[in-house]
């Protein structure tokens, strides 16, 4: 499983990292995001609602992100 390491990065970089990475995995597949910025949990939750992708909280800094949406804008 792909691991996206955003430890030490400030918001919105962890969300940008996960948005870029999820475009590279097939529908229904998951990746793990590692991030310790305090905005990651609320922003990942909002990102999931806005983009239609799934998330599961594994720990405070560990998130399972599942691609459930075919399209979506990928940030530069």
């Amino acid at each position, binding site marked *: 499983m792909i691991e996206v390491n955003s430890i030490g990065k*400030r*918001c*919105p970089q962890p*969300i*940008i990292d996960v*948005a870029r990475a999820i475009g590279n995995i097939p529908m229904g597949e998951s990746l793990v995001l590692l991030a310790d*910025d*305090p*905005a990651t949990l*609320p*922003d990942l*939750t*909002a*990102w999931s*609602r*806005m*983009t239609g992708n799934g998330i599961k909280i594994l720990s405070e800094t560990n998130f399972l992100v599942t691609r459930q949406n075919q399209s979506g*804008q990928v*940030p*530069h």
Partner: protein
Amino acid sequence: MVQVTRNFQSEAPLHVHAREVLLDAIDQGWSDPGKLSQSAARARILQGEALESISSHLKVPVDCLEVIGEGNLANHYAISGLLKNEFGFIHSAIDRKDVHAIARTQSHTTQLNVDLNGHIISTDQATEREIVLALQGGNIETGVIQPLADIARRFPHASIALDFTSCGPRLPLPELWASASFDATSWQGPSGIAFFAVGKQARWTNPLPHVDNTRAPRSYSLPLLLASSVALDAWIQEEISESSRLRLLSARVRKTIADSVSDCDIAGDLDSSMSHKTSISFLYVHGEELLRCLETKGFSVDSGSACTSANLQPSHVLAAMGVLTHGNIRITLHHGVSSEDVEALTQAIIESVAELRSQ
């Protein structure tokens, strides 16, 4: 280089009428109203007139009203005067941080969560304890208005402490309240002057060490009180027409941005928000960079993003609502703002987000 910065921050310059009065009041209202001299008598008359006028506009009996120099402190007095440690304390997740701080000192606290629109989620509270309920009228960050009467009905035995520091007289006081706090800046009055009210039936005791039976220190600035009273008079008159005009402008800002910018997250529904507040977050955009970009185009706005806060924490209000916290801006429309300036701000936001996303 942009010469003029157009202000859409929550703070506004003192109302022009209040400014004139303030300068005059510094000459007229310097004496201690509690003394016997001629100047003190004049100060006492000015003080009494100002308090009568303010209490009439806020719909609070004048003998229930106290003046204090700080909005957050007014809120603290309003809440803490009702609380005892054995009481249950209930507040919402989007209350001011000061309310959360009070909650941390209490042994029996319940935090009410909110939905995506910022409204308190219904909850049944079966308890034998006496309850103090902190209830916010309008939220300073998002403008979200709570359905106060509905919530009050859910807690029929609670003593309700209303936080009206942000909404001021924009909202009517609900029928039942034990205490309430107000801030003059909410009606374009001066900063450094605030009010709290204690209902006649409320079991309220001064929460700070005190030497007599006064409910609050009397050390506030009389000139600021007089300026605050004049500002309220003028603001209430303007609000009659400005409220609906600002609502139309806010609706246009929301629609234009939602139609023009992908992946934006607008906090709360305008129908249940104060008409002059809009909070919008843009996915994949850095809040501080957006603020700087708008500033270079001549517009000042606020932000709830973590990168713009002193402690680098995201807005607890946006997080509790489930709204995106990064790339956030808060727009406040003050009385007298022109539709051309609002349109120019809207276009500047659209351009700035596109610029930052393309970098």
